């Protein structure tokens, strides 16, 4: 007896008939569960973010655009911005990843306090942050005075730019990563420990890879914020072309300066934007598909 058909039927079919076809799995498993009405507010949100930028582009002065964005001052500011934002992001990673881990794995109360502390620089107008840094590292500051005695002076140097960027961007990395770590939970870490993996191995092979999307999101947010940082930098690092004049400061200067229509400022803003989006898309391109 083989493959007997007994009334209500069963039969085999050749697999060769099956066309692999396009994979609809994304639709079937993803947006299939979203109420479609939500597309409306989502589209509105995108519009809110995009249309002002289009309005900005509409005010560009095409005559001077190219000269504005390729001027040596613009280029040196862009290079400085990319350099300092990269270093600041690295510093945030070194300091922020451990902090996010500690918060994510701490008790509820400790976590709440640490999270509040981390959120503070977000609430503070960046300029006040700059003043605070100046009060600390400045000539009359606690640390600044000490450093002065060993001949180190931080304010108004490129180091100050990086410090200011780190101060304002750190919370982004910490909070984004912490959320992802908490969402992942400790199941896999427990499984790894139960297999004999040491703490470092668990960290590198399990915890961080599993929090990957959150880590990438945090790094991206952090980099973006560092790149756009203006207020704290202006106060703490000053506005010296080539040393501390990053793109946002160049934009500010152009905006305040001799320009007739602020066209230069807008042009520089767009240069910053395009660079940032390019970097973001690049980073996102590296990102592997969701692991789950």
């Amino acid at each position, binding site marked *: 007896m083989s493959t007997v058909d007994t009334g209500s039927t069963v039969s085999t079919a050749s697999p060769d008939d099956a066309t692999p076809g396009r994979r609809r799995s994304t639709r079937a498993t993803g947006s299939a569960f979203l109420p479609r009405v939500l597309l409306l507010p989502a589209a509105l949100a995108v519009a809110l973010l995009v249309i002002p930028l289009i309005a900005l582009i509409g005010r560009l002065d095409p005559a001077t655009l190219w000269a504005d964005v390729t001027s040596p001052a613009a280029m040196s500011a862009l290079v400085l911005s990319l350099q300092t934002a990269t270093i600041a992001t690295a510093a945030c990673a070194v300091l922020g990843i451990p902090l996010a881990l500690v918060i994510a794995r701490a008790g509820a109360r400790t976590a709440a306090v640490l999270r509040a502390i981390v959120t503070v620089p977000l609430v503070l107008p960046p300029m006040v942050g700059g003043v605070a840094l100046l009060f600390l590292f400045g000539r009359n500051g606690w640390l*600044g005075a000490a450093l002065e005695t060993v001949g180190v*002076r931080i*304010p*108004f140097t490129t180091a100050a730019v990086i410090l200011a960027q780190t101060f304002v961007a750190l919370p982004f990395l910490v909070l984004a990563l912490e959320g992802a770590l908490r969402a992942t939970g400790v199941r896999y870490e427990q499984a790894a420990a139960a297999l004999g993996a040491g703490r470092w191995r668990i960290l590198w092979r399990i915890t961080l890879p599993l929090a990957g999307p959150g880590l990438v999101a945090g790094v991206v947010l952090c980099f973006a914020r560092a790149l756009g940082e203006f207020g704290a930098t*202006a106060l703490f690092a*000053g*506005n010296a072309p080539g040393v501390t004049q990053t793109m946002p400061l160049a934009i500010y200067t152009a*905006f*305040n300066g001799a*320009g007739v229509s602020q066209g230069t400022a807008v042009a520089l803003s767009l240069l910053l934007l395009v660079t940032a989006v390019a970097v973001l898309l690049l980073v996102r391109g590296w990102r592997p598909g969701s692991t789950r």
Partner: protein
Amino acid sequence: GGPGGGTPGTDAVAGQVTVFAAASLSGAFDEIAADVEAAHPGVEIEPIRYDGSSTLATQLIEGARADVFASADEANLQRVVDAGLAASPRVFATNRLTLVVPTGNPGDVTGLADLADPDLAVVLCAAEVPCGAASGQLARAAGVTPRVDSYEQNVTAVLTKIATGEADAGLVYVTDAARSDDVETVATVGADDVVNRYPIVALAEARTPAAAAFVDHVLSPAGRAVLERWGFGAP
């Protein structure tokens, strides 16, 4: 200290100069810097740091390294002097306010009295900042109580609101008004009585006599000519 006693105009003066200057001086000081470098081949003026006078003063007090500080008001320079970083500043220019309106004057503004018109959008500097204090003084002198829609943080912000047409009238410095294509000035009675004085000083920790050379050049007739071209008045 460097080799002492060089006089302006001689090639003995050399070295780098870092200048902190109020934002409103940007065009004029760039020109003056070029002139100084031309006059003294050994002198190199670093790109001038322009920012709000208050910000610059704070930075200097907290240890920013600079040779020359030119402020848009005397109070902020006095903070630097009080901190023992400089002595005996000298006023090198003055500025005065003017009414500005968007090109075409959509609000039909004719004088300071229109600042009280509730139908017009009026922007002024905040009272806390120098241009705001001056605006208040000017309005009081004219017997006008402005109906203000926004107290801006600085002149640029006022200018932007006028230039984009958001506001119908505002008070800015003549030097700022001169730099924008998108605004018109309206005759402002009594503006000459409320002048803003710009002091300059070579800081005590100036590295070279070139700093003094820069200050001297600003105060010299050649410097004054440049400043006048940018709309500044005589001290």
